[in-house]
């Protein structure tokens, strides 16, 4: 895929969502640095083990690794990673990471854990698709991303951005209850 020089657009090499054992939930690679599935898995494993012991819950953390910059954040049993070349602006990457994790939080209505993520894998994949296109940052604002992914799923209720998490959970319960009664 596209290879961008230093002077051009900020670019992302991959975006990873792993579980608490380092297994894939959803991943997307944009750069040619990893050509085979085996090399991708190896990369995921080393990134996972390297960051495992750090505390990346409150704030996004960062590390230099194999000539790449990796910014990462953990929520419950989900590990979010963004990889880029080592000359990339770290804060741009952090904004992409926050956009990713926050929009996943909105789409899963605050219930950010592996199981819910897998149950809503379609939303996660669409979410990644809306954040990065071929390595180029498409959008970093969580509300906009979630809104774009869920336009059709919202059933005309209040837009995501205007809901608090507890409200979101309440609506979710209501939906479920309704579907059970059917």
């Amino acid at each position, binding site marked *: 895929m596209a290879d961008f020089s230093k002077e051009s657009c900020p670019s992302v090499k991959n975006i990873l969502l792993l579980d608490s054992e380092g297994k894939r939930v959803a*991943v997307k690679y944009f750069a040619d640095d990893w050509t085979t599935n085996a090399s991708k898995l190896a990369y995921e494993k080393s990134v996972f083990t390297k960051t495992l012991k750090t505390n990346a819950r409150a704030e996004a953390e960062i590390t230099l690794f194999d000539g790449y910059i990796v910014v990462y954040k953990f929520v419950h049993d989900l590990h979010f990673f963004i990889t880029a070349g080592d000359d990339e602006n770290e804060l741009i990457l952090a904004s992409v990471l926050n956009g990713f994790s926050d929009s996943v939080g909105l789409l899963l209505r605050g219930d950010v854990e592996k*199981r819910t993520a897998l149950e*809503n*894998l379609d939303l996660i994949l669409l979410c990644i698709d809306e954040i990065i296109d071929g390595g180029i940052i498409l959008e970093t604002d969580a509300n906009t991303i979630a809104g774009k992914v869920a336009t059709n799923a919202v059933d005309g209720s209040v837009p995501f951005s205007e809901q608090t998490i507890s409200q979101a959970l309440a609506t*979710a319960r209501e939906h479920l209850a309704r579907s059970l009664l059917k």
Partner: protein
Amino acid sequence: MPRSLVGGDLAAPEMAQPYMKKDDDDEEVEYSPFFGIEKGAVLQEARAFHDPQLDVRRCSQVITKLLYLLNQGETFTKVEATEVFFAVTKLFQSSDAGLRRLVYLMIKELSPSSDEVIIVTSSLMKDMNSKTDMYRANAIRVLCRIIDGTLLTQIERYLKQAIVDKNPVVASAALVSGIHLAQANPEIVKRWSNEVQEAVQSRAPLVQFHGLALLHQIRQNDRLAVSKLVSSLTRGSVRSPLAQCLLIRYTSQVMRESNINSQTGDRPLFDFLESSLRHKSEMVILEAARKITEMDVTSRELAPAITVLQLFLSSSKPVLRFAAVRTLNKVAMTRPLAVTTCNVDLEGLMSDTNRSIATLAITTLLKTGNESSVDRLIKQITNFMSDIADEFKIVVVEAIRSLCLKFPLKYRSMLNFLSNSLREEGGFEYKKAIVDSIITLISEIPDAKEIGLLHLCEFIEDCEFTYLSSQILHFLGNEGPRTSDPSRYIRYIYNRVILENATVRASAVSTLAKFGALVDTLKPRIFVLLRRCLFDTEDEVRDRATLYLQTLGGEVAIGNNEKDAKDFLFGSFDVPLANLEASLRTYEPSEEPFDISLVSREVRSLPLQEKKAPGKKAPAAAATPAPVSAVDAYQKMLSSIPEFAGFGRLFKSSEPVELTEAETEYAVNVVKHIYDSYVVLQYNCTNTIEEQLLEDVTVCVDASDAEEFSEICSKPLASLPYNSTGQIFVAFEKPEHVPAIGKILNLLKFTVKEVDTSTGEADEDGVEDEYQLEEFEVAAADYMLRVPVSNFRNAWENMDPESERVDEYGLGVRESLAEAVSAVINILGMQPCEGTEVVPKNARSHSCLLSGVFIGDVKVLVRLSFGLSGPNEVAMKLAVRSDDPEVSDKIHEIVASG
């Protein structure tokens, strides 16, 4: 919402309960809706896509399962992929928006071949013009991902429209697609300039960002246009932080390329960068600060950038701290003084929970620290070392080494630190880094020698790495005997003979022998120890012991006197190993024994690109074969020519010198082969005219300017057909070992015969003609081999100080210090040592170490000290030592005449 994906066939009842019965679910540890999923089964399920009555929910589930499989690394065969693709295209019938989005995603994942693309283009083009914004945006991205150039021209019109669409998502989709398309179809994308320019003015932040990126890409090869773009935008207001970051990158690029001197006049661009330091978005501040630090600016201009980075150091966000300390670390490499203001903050970061930040902080401090703070710093680092990974430790050790070289007086505390680190747990790479550092320090700081050696001795007492033990023993053998009390090391060395494996034992025996050779008082005792080694179980150890006993005892032919014994033990192996390997490969077993003195000593300088690639990605470079010595090939070729066979060993062959302009009728270059008392010129001629056949080609050489040359023979070329290359040789005699120099004038003489290009037959009659070649010089550098020495300081001290000749030269006004340094290196044709050929930016003075072998196999070492006085007025001090004082004088003559 959240919807369950997995339908009835996969445990639907449980699926509906995650919120009601959460406690129960927590017990199921390995729960996944995709548990036990199989490719074959899912492919079967995909048949649901063909149903005339589409079940939207079910189809969504199946697509998600397919996407899950692909995401887990499962691959589809060509047939499977085609089948799935066709099935998925059926889903365009459904108008469900969610399903449509998944279809888009699936098409992108499958990346269909061009004949398959046709099937979906009409559907996608319809979506591209749909009223729903999301359809438009996504259809554009999908379509642009899968189409080729010819199809692109068909939809170009719509894309141009989309770029200026009032919905920002659609505009961004079109712009980003444009960025991707411009890689393969730059000509088409270029035509969208006007629309893209409009997008750059958009009020939507991301449209502006994507527009700017695309506009720059369209204009990137037109420097003037980029410069105009930048200067117009820096005046205006760019709203999006991302776009501002881009603009900062482009601005610094323009400034660098146009060499705008920030001190004189043209300030607006720099002012823009500086004002970006006060932007409200942190990413913009960081980008601007980083670009300013990368530029060649004055300390006053650098200060504001350092200040904002310093503020970032105390941020609560790890990413921000990391970014700041990483930038400061880079600045500290070239301008340590500028960073000292941040030292207090950096010391605070040494205890940062993020180890990357802590390591960067330490290495930065080590670069900026002053002599008085070193002890305190080392103490703090000691506490820190125990809980970081090996790779970080190596970085720290390397930083300590360079710090110690900077403050040699502090060697004691730093050596202690290194030896303490040696005792800690650690892998091979880490230990090797420490040992290398200690060895460097010992070689560079004479006072550190004795302590350093003892530290190393203690380390090999308990060292699990054979390689390191051998390395240290070798080093000990060279340095130990010259210390004030050599006997203290013997115990450590002999312990190795008793306790270690065969490799280390053999090394220890050699080391003992070196002590015996140099320290007469120890000799009898060493003999006792060596005799004990004669009963070793390993034959290599026994062999070495026997050999050394004989050599040192002075009984056998290898060394009849002491000097020979020392040469034998300490003499460096002055043939480059790569060349020896190449020569051995080409050697064919015959009556004649292999003669090591014929092996070339010329070191081929490494291709530049290998140096540039910093370990990260070197795909092509790694594959380049070991440089097969060209000199070797020349030697073989020349000695096969009877006229030159008696010339002896080829001393040096120069790089080819072009004697004609590129793309002239005849291309000629010359290679100068230097022998002890002969010079052979090899002219490589190429005939580039198809209608001509050249015969009796000779080079008429006028060497009247080079007085000491007398032509002895020449070897013309009988015929030179089109597109072939032939060699003409001219040989000269010159006084032995004398670096005769002078200008050589050449004239190519030949008989031209017309060739009928259709038949390839040449005319009977030829016309005599001649062709003027450019002149060239046999220069002093041609008599100098580039031979490196591993330890310049040692080599220098081992040379006779009597042979030293020192003088000073004024080099006049030069472009830069670096240019002057490389000019002198070129005149001398010597090998720069220890990376001293690189002149740091902004340096006012520089010293450069050179080594080489002059004709007659005379080793030469040169120390150059350069200094700038006045505006680019370069002065140079040249000190030469060599095996032969006359050669030292000659080096001065060369420089004086160059």
